[in-house]
Structures are given as C-alpha cells and as structure tokens.
C-alpha cells in the first residue's frame, strides 16, 4: 500500500543560517505520515517549525536531510512547480494585476487546459466557494474573507493531491474565522482532498482536524487525534499548549498494577492510573485539567486534597477557583455554574477539598 499515505516526512531536517552567524535547525528530525483524505493540522507556537515543514512539502524549501514523499513518490528535491500540491497562503498571495478569473485559471493555464474548459471550471470553482459571478473583479475590490475564498478556489481548481494551508484564517476577524473553520471542514469532506493545515490556534486545530501534530522547537512532540492530544498529552509542553492544565510535581513512592502512588511534597499522597511502569523515587509531573477537579464533593475511590481558596473568578458559564495546598502546590478548579447555589461553593479564604478520580490526571516525565 504505497499510496495509503498522502504525505510522508521521513526524518526531515531543515537548517537555516541565522543572521548572527549560527545555524538553526528549524525542523529537527521530524517523521510523520499523513493519511490520504485526512484533515491534518500542524500546531505550535511561532518558530516551532510548522510553517517550514509546510514549505518543504510545497517545495519552497528543500530539506537539509531526510525525505518527503507524496503518495509514495520521493519529492525531496523536486521543485515546487512540479509538485502535485497547491497552497493557500497566509496573506492569500493573489495576483493583484489579474482579475479573479485570471487568478483562478492560472494553474489550469500552466497545465495547458483549453480556454473553454478553463472558464467552465472557474465558474464551478467560484460556485464551490460561494462567490459566483465574481470573475471580472480585481483582488483589491474584495474583502478579506472573499480574497480567502478566491485563494481557496485558485488552489482547489487544480485538484491537487494535497492542499496546504498556511494559517489561512489568521487575517480574518473572530466571527468570520469561526464561520470559515466550519466551511473549510465541510469543503474538505466534500472534495475529499488531503488538507494540511498550519495554525497556532489550538482551538482551531481541535475543531477542524482529524489528526494534529503538536510541534515545538522543530520537533513533533505528539501526533494524534484531537481527543487523544487533549486527554492524553505526551509531554508537559503539549498538555500546557492545548487547553489549560494544572501541573503538580511529585515523586513516585510505589506502583500496584496500573495504580501509581505519587507523593506531593507536604501536600499528601495521590493515586494515579497509568499504563507505564515507574520506579520508586522517580520524579514525575501530574497533569490534570481544571474541569476534571471537583470542589467540596469528595470522591470515595479517588484523591481528596485539602487546601485554601486563594481566588474566585466568575466568568459566566463557569467559576474558577484558585486553591493552594499545604505544600504550596496551586491548582485551578473549574466548576460549571449549573445552579445559583453552585455558584457559591466557596469563598476566598475557605478551607476546601479538591477531589479527582484516579483516571483524571496524566503522569508525565518530560
């Protein structure tokens, strides 16, 4: 099954010379396989190597080391104009001296598609991005959202094997952004083309993607489905970057099957379920999401820790409580405001119990 994967990055390295005269590995031994027909996101903060990875798949940059395969064919040294991929650029990069029609048909023209077929397919493409009849406009006469759709049409009309999107919604305002997220996802299902989507917005990645690669400092830390990345992050960075997480540093004191006993200095012992094996005395970090903690409702077969409320933040749907334990560990607890009474569980300074099940946290070592 050579064609099971739309894109494969095999141990890819990209080094750049920095202005200071050093060498920076923007992408440092990245290996990932992107399945055919998948909506795949590269997620990470700026400078993590996600855009460089995308540019190497597009062919704008050639890898220093490693291989890039598109549907099984080695593309590592093939120039951009000969690759079966198309890109939607961050600032759209529409040709300002051409009409919308000339922009969209550019790719077909390069392939030598006859004029009649071109103009037919342009109007189809405009139909697809819901901007029919815009052929004669100039890019400057269009709004940001419209330009975005034209850029999409210009890329998709070529029926690429893979569509690359470089933060395409970055320049749009929040409301339009949300609309376009759903629209893009729907469009991707309709056309069935593999999308590789670069974003620094974790919510956007979680909303749209089939799978996500979380990157940091040129390395892919975790590749997985959105719920896996959220529920079972591989590293502290991933846990911290996706959503909000409480980190509690502790030491392993014992393990009974899948239950690990961890001592939090001066705060107490907690029991956490983990599929991994730990040694006694090993330093670990417990990562637990604020919404998985309960305030003043003890769980019998779980962990219950005493602490003091330091702050109460009401944010409408939820109330956030900052609780400090005896050993100076601090956590944030998120309680949904289901009833009026629920809003008043605790006040600043109250002593409270913070409870969570054995399966709620995640034990991390890096």
């Amino acid at each position, binding site marked *: 099954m050579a064609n099971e994967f739309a894109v494969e990055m095999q141990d890819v390295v990209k080094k750049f010379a920095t*202005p200071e005269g050093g060498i920076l590995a923007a992408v440092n031994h990245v290996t990932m396989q992107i399945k055919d027909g998948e909506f795949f996101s590269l997620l990470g903060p700026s400078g993590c190597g996600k855009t460089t990875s995308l540019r190497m798949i*597009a*062919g*704008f940059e050639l890898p220093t080391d490693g291989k890039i395969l598109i549907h099984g064919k080695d593309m590592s040294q093939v*120039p*951009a*104009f*000969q690759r079966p*991929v*198309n*890109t939607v*650029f961050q*600032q759209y*990069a*529409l*040709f*300002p*001296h*051409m009409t919308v029609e000339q922009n969209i048909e*550019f*790719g077909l023209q*390069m*392939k030598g598609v006859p004029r009649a077929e071109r103009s037919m397919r342009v109007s189809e493409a405009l139909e697809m991005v819901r901007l029919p009849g815009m052929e004669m406009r100039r890019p400057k006469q269009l709004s940001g959202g419209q330009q975005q759709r034209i850029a999409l049409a*210009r*890329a998709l009309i*070529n029926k690429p094997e893979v569509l690359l999107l470089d933060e395409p919604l970055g320049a749009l305002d929040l409301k339009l952004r949300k609309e376009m997220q759903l629209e893009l996802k729907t469009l991707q299902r309709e056309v069935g083309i593999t999308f590789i989507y670069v974003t620094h917005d974790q919510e956007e990645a979680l909303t749209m993607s089939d799978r996500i690669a979380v990157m940091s400092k040129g390395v892919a830390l975790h590749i997985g489905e959105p719920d896996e990345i959220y529920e079972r992050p591989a590293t502290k960075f991933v846990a911290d970057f996706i959503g909000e997480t409480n980190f509690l540093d502790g030491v392993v004191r014992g393990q009974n099957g899948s239950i690990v006993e961890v001592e939090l200095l001066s705060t107490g012992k907690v029991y956490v379920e983990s599929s991994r094996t730990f040694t006694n005395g090993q330093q670990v970090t417990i990562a637990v999401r604020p919404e998985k903690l309960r305030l003043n409702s003890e769980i019998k077969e779980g962990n219950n820790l005493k602490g003091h409320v330091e702050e109460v933040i009401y944010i409408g749907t939820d109330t956030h409580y900052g609780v400090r334990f005896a050993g100076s560990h601090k956590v944030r607890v998120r309680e949904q405001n289901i009833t009026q009474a629920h809003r008043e569980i605790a006040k600043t300074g109250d002593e409270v119990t913070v409870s969570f099940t054995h399966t709620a946290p995640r034990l991390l070592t890096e």
Partner: protein
Amino acid sequence: MLKFFRNKKGFQLFGLLGPGALWILLFFNLPILIVLFISFVERGRAGSIKLPPVYTLDNYVQLFNACTSQFAGPECDPLLYIGIFGHSVRIGLVVTLWCILLGYPLSYFISKQKQVWRDTLMILVIIPFWTNFLVRTYALKQVLATEGLLNSFLINLHLINQPLDLLFNEFAVVVGLVYGYIPFAILPMYASIEKFDHTLMEAAADLGASPARAFWRVMLPMTLPGVVAALVLVFVPVVGAFITPDIMGGGKIEMIGTLINRQFGVSRNWPFGSAMSLMLMLLVLIGVIAYFRSSTEETRRAM
C-alpha cells in the same frame, strides 16, 4: 469670515506655488518660445539672427532636404539630417535596451540582499553621479583606448595580438552612454522590484509555473512601471546626448545632440539649431506619448 479664510488659503497657495511657477515660466517656457521664434527666422552673418527678423520656413525645409542649404555641394544627400535623426533614435533604443537588460537583474539582485547590503550597493550605484560626467567619460575613454587599460590587459593575457579598435566608433558611444545612464534605469526599476512581494512568485510556482513563466506572467507585469520609467528616463536624454558621442565617437559618430551643438558653435546657424531642437522635442514627445498610450492598461494594472 469664511471668505477671509478662503482668501488666506488662496494667498498661501500662491505663496507656495508662485516662486516655482515663476521659475518655470521664466527659465523654461519663455526660452522655448524664444527657440520657437528663432527657428522661423533667417540666420545672421556672424551667428545670431538677421535683424530686423526675416521670417522663413527654410530651416525646417532644410531638415527634410539637406540640399536646400546654401552650402550644399553637388553630391549632397537630401536625407542627411533625417538619417542622423534615425541613427540617434536607433542608438537611443539600443542604449535603453542595454540599460534595462543589465539594470533589471542588478536591481533584482540588490533588492534580495539584506537591508545593510542593499543600502551599500545602492550607494555604489549612485556614487558615480558625484563625479563630473566629463571626467567619467574621459576616464572611460582611457580604458577603451588603443593603448588603454582593456587592450593592454587582453594583450598581456595573450587573448589578442593586436589592440582592438574599441574607441571612436558606435560601440564606444553605446558603451559610454550605457555607462553614463544606467543609474537612471536602475533607480526606478529597483524601486519597483523592491516593492514586489516575492510570495507571488511562490504562488505562481505553486500553481505550476516554471521560474521563466512566473517571471513573464507575474513579476515583469508587476514591475513594469519601473521598466517604463527607466525607458523614458534613459531614452529621452540619450537621443539628445552630445558630450558622450563627441568624446567617445571622436567626431565620427553624428547624433542629433552633436549636430545641434555644432549649429550653435562652429556653424553659427542658430535658426537651424533651433529647428532641430524643436524637432527633437517633438519626436521624443510623440514617442513617449505613444508608449504610454500602448502600455497604460498594463501599467495601470500593475499599480
């Protein structure tokens, strides 16, 4: 109140525009009218014009038929001056073409450098302006001379045995003019290319355009305003140039500029020189207007 402000504004406008307008009127428009007047009168004995003026069209007739001159010999070529005009236009076009062909890649190269290097390189392009044009042309003459730098160099390398005739021909004039006017081509083209967003070239490549096609379809049309400006800025002065053809051509290469220069000098024929000046102006004007007409659409699109 309103009227007062209006008057004040009008006064300010006059104060700002007045001096400049007056300058142009006195030293630009008025002299052209004087030249126009002189071109329609008979010449005087020792230069200048005959007084009181005797109106005539002879100067213009002579332009189109050189044999109407009182000094014309039996083997005169009636199209002598038209030929020189044609020759000047041809040299102008060749020089402009070379300036653009050499200047465009150079401008592109400079625009791709880091900020510090860009500034340095642009200063290097501009520096020759600070040296007197005449000095530069004489220096170039020394380079191309029979015993000059280039010939000595080539002979020492044993690439040639006899010195090449590099001076006092059309080649020398073209080299001299390209050398002198290339900054006028680089500056506007650099301004256009520097503004050009190179992501557009990536977009074109992404859509399947080879580098050459991407250049013709995207980069050239978008930087065309700079190329047009270069064309006008080089062609116009080169067609009328007289110092370079005089020095580099050694009197053998006749251009409109040298011809006009001669009318006001040794030939002492101001009226004929004036007629030629006005014809040159007309020629350049027609050329530039025609070019802008044909390229407006492209230029406007690229804006």
